């Protein structure tokens, strides 16, 4: 079956442009149709994607600018498949949620939503470095318009300026880095200038070059995520954005940054990734601790979710820079999980704020659960998923990430475990302060409407479904996700070889581990992941094992970190 990714990619933007020339209601309908069509397309792609074959599928490859060797190359593989699905789900939810209230200059709103979705999809599907950079930069612009035009915050213009300039600072550095990558690869390998990722991966740049290029890319991605020292735009930006816009911004755009690390940085600059591994892990750790600490001290619900995202993205970064298959798989899974959790969380905050006299401060909320049991239940599910309750997909994701880090850097993994505990503190605090406790002064509790439910319940169902079948998102991507970090894994493994064998971790055969962590005859002591359960198992017996000890565990004990 052939799927034309170009249609998929441009559908939302095209319908948005069309809506510009139509009355508001028609534009609204078109926006919904665009988002729905994209979702349908994404589902078809996920179902149709050939897992056994793996690799890039549905590839569109045309020359865009021949003088610069830039191709319009799109493709889906295990790395981006579920992120694309997540994007379409969240955008549809955001579009539907936006329809709850009348919107000024409606056509423009839907236009920017459509362009935003197309740009995010483009960044996720681009298989050409220049195209990726273009989409990555472009996706910020509609959000700039959406915030500047439809925000109700008073300081929206300064806030959105800060957001745009902060994030584009990194992105523009990435532009130079991308051009340097292509030009220097051409100089190193001869031949034509090309930006196609698969061609660039053929040439490894010198280590010094890799290092500065890596730093430029890291700047772009870390700001976008955001990560701890460069998150300065986040509080103001989160406070200023309209909530449906914020839901997709927090749910999707930050994931593109995490995805960028796996798509571009680890395959193209493996040596630099190994060199800066510790630094990046420390940044991730700082994000987790800092984000968690602020999430349970601040009282603004948006910021609680914002700082919790900071912490969660710290986990994802941790997984990426474990530089091994488990970490990478966890990072991708956790990206999907977090997107699915944070978007309904923002919608629920919107509902709660409507019931608390418009305030978004948790001190003005409370006691909402008494007359709104369904809403409270939904909120509870979201909160529990956010704190990575065992049984949720978030738990599996964090487990994978910590497993990966555990193998790479023991000390960092141990500290990161604290982050898991902290997550439960801020998630439960948010839930309790909003839903229980003493009733706030101006609160007027009422159940959520069926219309709200139409948006929220499918998202909740997705969370629950993923909790039962986390391997759903893992299996299809397995091969490509491990491939993304394979080179870096080999390099880091070579560095760590002596240390690992000395500490009795057991030396792994890098090629085997890199190919796929599925049950196969491996050296004793090797830990692999059972793709059916998502749990670590002994490759020889198929028994679940404890990754820290390497000993089999009984099913009753497992799995608690």
């Amino acid at each position, binding site marked *: 079956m052939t799927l034309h990714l170009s249609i998929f990619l441009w559908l939302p933007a095209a319908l948005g442009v069309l809506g510009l020339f139509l009355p508001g209601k028609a534009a609204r309908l078109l926006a919904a149709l665009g988002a729905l069509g994209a979702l349908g397309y994404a589902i078809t792609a996920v179902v149709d994607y050939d897992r056994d074959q793996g690799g890039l599928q549905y590839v569109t490859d045309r020359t865009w*600018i*021949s*003088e*610069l060797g830039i191709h319009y190359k799109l493709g889906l593989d295990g790395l981006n498949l579920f992120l694309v699905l997540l994007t379409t789900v969240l955008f549809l939810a955001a579009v539907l949620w936006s329809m709850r209230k009348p919107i*000024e*200059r409606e056509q*423009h709103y839907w236009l920017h939503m459509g362009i935003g979705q197309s740009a995010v999809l483009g960044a996720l599907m681009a298989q050409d470095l*220049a195209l990726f*950079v*273009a*989409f990555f*930069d*472009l996706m910020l*612009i509609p959000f*700039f*318009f959406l915030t*500047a*035009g439809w925000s109700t915050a008073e300081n929206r*213009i300064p806030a*959105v*300026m800060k957001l*745009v*300039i902060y994030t*584009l*600072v990194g992105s*523009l*550095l990435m*532009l*130079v880095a991308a*051009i*340097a990558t292509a*030009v*220097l690869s051409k100089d190193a390998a001869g031949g034509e*200038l090309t930006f196609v990722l698969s061609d660039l991966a053929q040439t490894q740049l010198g280590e010094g070059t890799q290092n500065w290029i890596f730093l430029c890319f890291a700047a772009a991605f870390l700001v976008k995520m955001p990560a701890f020292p460069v998150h300065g735009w986040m509080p103001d930006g989160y406070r200023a954005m309209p909530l449906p816009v914020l839901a997709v911004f927090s749910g999707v755009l930050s994931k593109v940054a995490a995805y960028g690390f796996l798509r571009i940085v680890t395959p193209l600059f493996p040596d630099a990734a190994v060199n800066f591994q510790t630094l990046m892990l420390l940044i991730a750790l700082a994000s987790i601790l800092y984000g968690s600490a602020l999430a349970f001290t601040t009282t603004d619900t948006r910021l609680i979710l914002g700082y919790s995202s900071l912490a969660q993205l710290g986990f994802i970064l941790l997984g990426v820079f474990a530089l091994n298959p488990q970490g990478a798989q966890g990072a991708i899974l956790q990206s999907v999980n977090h997107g699915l959790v944070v978007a309904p969380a923002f919608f629920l905050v919107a509902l709660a704020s409507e019931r608390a006299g418009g305030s978004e401060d948790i001190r003005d909320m409370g006691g909402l659960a008494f007359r709104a049991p369904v809403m409270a239940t939904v909120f509870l599910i979201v909160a529990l998923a956010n704190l990575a309750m065992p049984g949720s997909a978030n738990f599996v994701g964090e487990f994978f990430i910590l497993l990966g880090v555990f193998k790479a850097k023991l000390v960092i993994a141990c500290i990161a475990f604290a982050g898991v505990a902290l997550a439960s503190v801020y998630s439960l605090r948010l839930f309790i302060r909003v839903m229980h406790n003493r009733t706030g002064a101006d609160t007027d509790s009422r159940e959520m409407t069926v219309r709200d439910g139409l948006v929220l319940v499918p998202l909740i169902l997705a969370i629950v479904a993923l909790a039962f079948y986390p391997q759903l998102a893992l299996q299809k991507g397995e091969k490509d996700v491990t491939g993304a970090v394979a080179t870096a894994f080999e390099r880091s493994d070579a560095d760590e070889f002596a240390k690992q064998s000395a500490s009795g971790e057991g030396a792994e055969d890098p090629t085997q581990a890199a190919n796929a962590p599925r049950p196969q005859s491996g050296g004793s002591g090797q830990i692999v992941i059972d793709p059916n359960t998502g749990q670590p198992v002994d490759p020889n017996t198929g028994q679940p094992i404890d990754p820290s000890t390497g000993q089999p565990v009984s099913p009753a004990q497992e799995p608690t970190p």
Partner: protein
Amino acid sequence: MTTVLAAAKAPDFDWAALSPFLALLGGAVVVLMLGLFRARFAREQLVPFLSLAAVGAAIGLTIWQWDTRTDLISGALRVDALSQNLNLIILATTAAAILLSWRAVAPRESAHGEYHALLLTSAAGMLVLVGAQNLVTLFIGLELLSIPLYVLCATEMRRATALESGLKYLIIGSAGSAVLLYGLALIYGATGATDFAGIAAAADAEGLADDSLLLGGIALTVVGLAFKCSIAPFHQWTPDVYEGAPTPVTAFMAVATKAAAFGVFLRLFDVALIGSSATWAPFLALLATVTIIVGNVGALGQSSLKRLLAYSSVAQAGYLLAGVVVASQLGVRATVFYLAVYLVMNMAAFAVIVARERETGLGDDLEAMRGIGRDRPLLAWPMTLAMLGLAGVPATAGFIGKFYLIDAAVDGDYAWLGIVIVVGSMISLRYYLRVVTTVWSNDAPAAAVAPSAGTPALAGASQDGPSEFRPGAERHWEVILVAALFGAATLVLGIVPGPLFDLVGEAGSGLGLF
């Protein structure tokens, strides 16, 4: 050069290759005469129409001669891909400027015939400049473009700032010309040749690459050209002159002068002085850095759009200089490409400013843009696209242009200059986005005030001249057309840049670079 000798023996003119230049001069003479008629129709409609026709004819003749590669007038002028490309850019700018001045105040106050004749003469000077391959022609071209511009800046005679602008431009421009002339003299003194190929040959044969006389000449030439391109620290005149000059003239000056000056920059440095590139390239890179920083920082606090665009043009000159620094064919192509997209983006912005000047009476103040997103989509979108394009946002021509320039810089081992360019772009977002947020602001547009309130009549100018435009008067379709056309081009060339790449594809091939 054998061609030079051959031409000297049998001096004949290749009229066909020279025809675009002649069309402009002929047009200038005709409109000058026609402007003397009493009939209002002849002055106000026929004159601009005929000057537009002259520019159209010049464009047609340029395209007719597209594949011509020859030397003209004993090797004084060169017709090659570079000059043809720049001719098109200059002529397109001139056409747009004529459309913008069709119903403007400036030609009414100064007389239509003179105004358009000066505009055409200045454009003719630019054509000479981009083809010049001889120090004498270079200087003649530069003066032919500058002197009409000095006058044009002051054509809104009842506005003090316009006169100030003209005077300032005259004094500083003359100083620049003097410095340039001194530099050219030193280059001639060092090498004993005036034609570019002869200079290169002499410098090569006598090992003059590090000769202090030649380097002194190069330094002074850089300074002289830097005045024309508004490269920091020789840019101080730019904001005042841009702000004071009539807006159509500002638009013409901002784009066409820059294209012509960079054309000669490329030809002089990449042909005549290529032997000393190891010396001047780092120096020019430093100048580019200073220019990018100064331009972008200077634009930050501006509330006058013309001043903002003036500083922005300083910054853009810095970006363009990167293409000269690397002294490669890629660099030439990138520079010409960027000049083309710069034309498109700037013209869109200036056209919107002209339209709002006439409608609101707020002049070129940023407030004139407030809230036009609500009811004037044909002005709001071009302005938005122009600003995003100048900032280098993807899906606009500006992104591709910057991409090309950075590519050329990295390819020429000037990766750090690429980083300087993006650092400049980051700063520039601050002021470009301020314009965009104003355009799409939800606040009501500021109340229109009478134009006379902000622009006091100058003593000495007659009070009973033709009436000024009233705010909210009829909408000028030709201005909106320019805005919409170039706004659309900003977007289209950002998505489908292929044709423009084809156009500039050979720009560097005639210069003997690799």
